[in-house]
C-alpha cells in the first residue's frame, strides 16, 4: 500500500464517507449530567435563603475589597519568597558539599513535617521566645536592635510563615525541574566555556521551567486560599474581612459566598496567567505550538488577514 502525496493539488483522493459508530452510552451520560446541573442551579436560584441581593450588596464593600487587597499582597509576597528560597534550596540540595546539601535537606524536612497553621501561630508568638531581635554578625556586634513585638506584626508573621513554608515545597519542585534537564545540556554548556552558574542560569533553569511552572501555578492557587489561615492571627485578609462583617450582621452564608466569589475570580485569573507562562517556556519542546484561544478567535473573525500573513 502506498499513500499518495498530493502536492500539485491534482488527483486529490475523495474524503471518506462512512456511517459513524453510534455512542448511546454517551448520550445517556450527558443527559444525566444536564439534569443534575439544572437541578442544582434551580435549587440555588429559587432558595430565598441565599439572599443573593445581600451578596451583591457586599461584593464591592470597601472592607471586602481591602481584605482582597491584603490577600493578594500576602499571596504575591509569600510566593516570591517561596520561589527565591526554593531555587536557593534546590541548588544547595544538589551541591557536592554534604553540609550544604544536608542543611537544605534539614530545612525542607523541618518545614514539611509541621502544619503551616502551627508555623503561623509560632511566628505570631515569636516574641515569647525572642523578645529582642538583633541583626548583625553572629556572636559579634549587631547593627539593628528591635523589639520583636513591634517588628513581627501579624502581617509579617503571616508572610514569614507562609513564605518560609512555601520555600520548602518550591525547593522540591525546582529540584525535580533541574533533574529533568538531561546532563548532556550542561556538558555542552560547560564545553563552551560557561561557568557552573552561567550553565545553571542560561541553560538548565530555563529548561527546567517547563517542569517547574505547572506545579508552581498549583502552589500559587493553593497559596491564595491557604493565606486565609492568616485570619486566625488577625491579619485583615479577605476571609477575616468577611468574618468581621458577619459577626455584626449575621449574614454568615452571604459573606462566605462573597469571599468565595473573589477567591474564584483570582484563581481563574491565575489559570490564564499559568497558561501563557507554560506556553512561553514550552518553546522548543514541541515541533508546532498550538494557537492560544485568543489567536484562534482572531483566526475565525479575520480569516483572510491571518491567512495572508502566513
Amino acid at each position, binding site marked *: 500500500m502506498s499513500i499518495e502525496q498530493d502536492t500539485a493539488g491534482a488527483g486529490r483522493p475523495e474524503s471518506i464517507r462512512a456511517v459513524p459508530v453510534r455512542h448511546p452510552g454517551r448520550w445517556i451520560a450527558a443527559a444525566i449530567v444536564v439534569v443534575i446541573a439544572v437541578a442544582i442551579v434551580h435549587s440555588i436560584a429559587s432558595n430565598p435563603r441565599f439572599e443573593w441581593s445581600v451578596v451583591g450588596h457586599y461584593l464591592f464593600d470597601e472592607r471586602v475589597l481591602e481584605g482582597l487587597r491584603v490577600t493578594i499582597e500576602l499571596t504575591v509576597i509569600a510566593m516570591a519568597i517561596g520561589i527565591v528560597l526554593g531555587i536557593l534550596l534546590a541548588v544547595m540540595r544538589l551541591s557536592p558539599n554534604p553540609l550544604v546539601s544536608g542543611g537544605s535537606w534539614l530545612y525542607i524536612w523541618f518545614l514539611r513535617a509541621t502544619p503551616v497553621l502551627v508555623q503561623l501561630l509560632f511566628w505570631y508568638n515569636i516574641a515569647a521566645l525572642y523578645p529582642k531581635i538583633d541583626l548583625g554578625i553572629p556572636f559579634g556586634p549587631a547593627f539593628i536592635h528591635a523589639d520583636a513585638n513591634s517588628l513581627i506584626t501579624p502581617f509579617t508573621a503571616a508572610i514569614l510563615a507562609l513564605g518560609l513554608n512555601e520555600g520548602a515545597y518550591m525547593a522540591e519542585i525546582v529540584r525535580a525541574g533541574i533533574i529533568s534537564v*538531561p546532563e*548532556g*545540556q550542561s*556538558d*555542552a*554548556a*560547560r*564545553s*563552551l*566555556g*560557561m*561557568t*557552573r552558574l*552561567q550553565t545553571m542560569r*542560561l*541553560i538548565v533553569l*530555563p*529548561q527546567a521551567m517547563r517542569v517547574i511552572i505547572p506545579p508552581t501555578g498549583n502552589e500559587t492557587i493553593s497559596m491564595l486560599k491557604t493565606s486565609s489561615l492568616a485570619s486566625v492571627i488577625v491579619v485583615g485578609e479577605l476571609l477575616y474581612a468577611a468574618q468581621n462583617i458577619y459577626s455584626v450582621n449575621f449574614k454568615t452564608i452571604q459573606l462566605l459566598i462573597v469571599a468565595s466569589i473573589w477567591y474564584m475570580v483570582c484563581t481563574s485569573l491565575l489559570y490564564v496567567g499559568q497558561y501563557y507562562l507554560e506556553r512561553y*517556556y514550552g*518553546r*522548543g*519542546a*514541541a*515541533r508546532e505550538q498550538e494557537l492560544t484561544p485568543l489567536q484562534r478567535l482572531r483566526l475565525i473573525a479575520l480569516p483572510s488577514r491571518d491567512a495572508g500573513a502566513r
Partner: protein
Amino acid sequence: MTGEPMVRAEGVRKSFGRLEVLKGIDLEVAPGDVMCLLGPSGSGKSTFLRCVNHLEKINGGRLSVDGELVGYRAAGDTLHELREGEIARKRAEIGMVFQHFNLFANMTALENVTCAPIRVKRLGREAARARARAMLARVGLADKLDDYPAQLSGGQQQRVAIARALAMEPKLMLFDEPTSALDPELVGDVLGAMKQLASEGMTMMVVTHEIGFAREVADSVVFMDDGVVVEAGPPAEVLGNPREERTRAFLSKVL
C-alpha cells in the same frame, strides 16, 4: 610553538570510584592533524575526550593542551589546581561535539550558536549573529536559523552543534561519535562538514566507527581497548595492516 603538540598525554589515568577506565594513555596530536580514536564500546574513548576538555578530572599522569596542563598550573615542582573560571576559559578554546548533539533545546539554531560567543567571549550581539550566520551557512544550514532543535533532523542538529563549537574559534575540536546516532543517509552531510574542517587545518580528535572517514581524513589512528592504547600509527598501518590481534579482531567486526 613549533614542535609543541596540540595535545599530549603521558600515562593518563582515570577511575570512577574503584573502576579504572583509563590505565595510562600516551599519545600526541600535532597542530593541524586529525586523530581518529577507535575501539570497542566501554574502552574509555569518551572518557579520554572528556578529560582533554576537563569535563572529567584525571587521577594520574600528565595531560596538556597547547603546551599547558589541563586543570593545573605548574609552579616549579608543585601543581596548583585551577579555579573554575580559569578552567572555563580554557574549555572555551576547545570545541566539543557530542554523540547526541546536546543542542540547547530552549534556543533556536541561531541562538544556540550565538549564546556562548555573547556570554563567554563578550562578543557584541550583532557581531555574534553575523558570525553565527556565517558558521551555519558553512555547514549548509543558512535557511534553518530560527528553527528549534526539535524541528531539525538529527543530521541538521549535529551540523548546528558543529557550527556552535566553531563559533568560539577553537584551536582544537573533539568529536565523540558524531554520526553514531544518525540515520545512515544523514551521516554523509556531517562527515562532509568534518572533512571540510579538516582540510582547513583544524586540529581534531575524532572518536568514530566510520573506518572510511578515518582512512581518508586521519593523519593518525589510535586503537584503544580496555583503557589502554593497543596500537597507534598512520591509518594505512593501523587500518590496513594491523600488528595486534585485538585490532584485527575489532576491525573485522566494524568493517
